[in-house]
């Protein structure tokens, strides 16, 4: 249903109704912004890059063949644009390996002693402590509702690799939240 609506809007934009593009921007802005934010944590920068994503999507809209979901196509642009931005403006940024990231997380949760009022706050803060690609894959799967195959297309990974990566990322998130929020409270939490 959603897919059909997207296609209708795209057709309308391609026929010259530029204003219809605003509907797509409204619909996907929070997802694109979240995906970009996972890779570029500085809010202003992430917002600029997200805008660039939509501009690129608009310019190459005629190239969208409909062989995948529009969201998958859009998130691919978001992923590549964010990576290109990091390479261009922050070439010194290197994604930490797992052991380094674990040490950073330990240090953060031990020294800062975060006191989260709710699991919701804890999870949404702790996801930022994950390595960027892990945070991105969780966002794509659980928030943006992309399948493993679609995540493979977006992040240019084999499906099996994406599946393993998602499993590990989820485990890491759980560990971080339990350390920061408390294992017992996490288990008892009910939405």
């Amino acid at each position, binding site marked *: 249903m959603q897919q059909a609506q997207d296609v209708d809007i795209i057709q309308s*934009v*391609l026929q010259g109704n*530029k*204003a219809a*593009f*605003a509907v797509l*921007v*409204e619909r996907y*802005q*929070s*997802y694109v*912004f*979240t995906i970009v*934010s996972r890779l570029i944590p500085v809010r202003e920068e992430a*917002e600029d890059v*997200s*805008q660039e994503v*939509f*501009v*690129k999507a*608009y*310019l*190459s*809209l*005629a*190239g969208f063949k409909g062989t995948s979901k529009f969201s998958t196509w859009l998130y691919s642009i978001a992923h*590549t*644009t964010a990576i*290109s931005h990091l*390479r*261009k403006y922050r070439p010194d940024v290197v994604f930490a390996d797992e052991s380094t990231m674990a040490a950073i997380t330990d240090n953060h949760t031990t020294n800062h002693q975060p006191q989260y009022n*709710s*699991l*919701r706050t*804890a*999870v*949404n803060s702790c*996801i930022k402590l994950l390595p960027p690609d892990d945070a991105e894959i*969780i*966002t794509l799967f*659980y*928030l943006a509702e992309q399948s493993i195959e679609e995540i493979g297309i977006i992040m240019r990974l084999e499906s099996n690799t994406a599946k393993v990566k998602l499993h590990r990322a*989820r485990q890491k*998130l*759980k560990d971080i*939240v339990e350390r920061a929020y408390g294992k017992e409270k*996490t*288990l008892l*939490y*009910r*939405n």
Partner: protein
Amino acid sequence: MTQEDKTYKNLIDSLETEQPSMRFTKNVMDAIEGMEVAPVSKRYINPLIIKAIAAVLVLCLLASLYVVVMSADAIPDYTSKLPESPLTEHFSLYIIGINIILLMLLAERWLSSKKRIQDLQNNAQE
């Protein structure tokens, strides 16, 4: 559902998207003001031509296989030289020539796609 699954479900249900500024849509619409959707670039080589070339190659391979099989003796005599057949000789030349042309087309296609990817990356960085 196990306790582990429940924990994961709790975590995942707690995830929320981040919200950009209120002016986000307006900023995007302002940015695309005066821009037009870029037309789709045509493919460098028509897919039909590629299919035709592939068909010719397969036919050549089948023909050469046929010639080899038909010219072979039931019990090969390894002590004597193979008979010189002008047809076989010409066939080999044709096949080599076609393969060279195909290789050149392949190389040209690979180089043009490489250039296109380079251009896209440059555009993405601008």
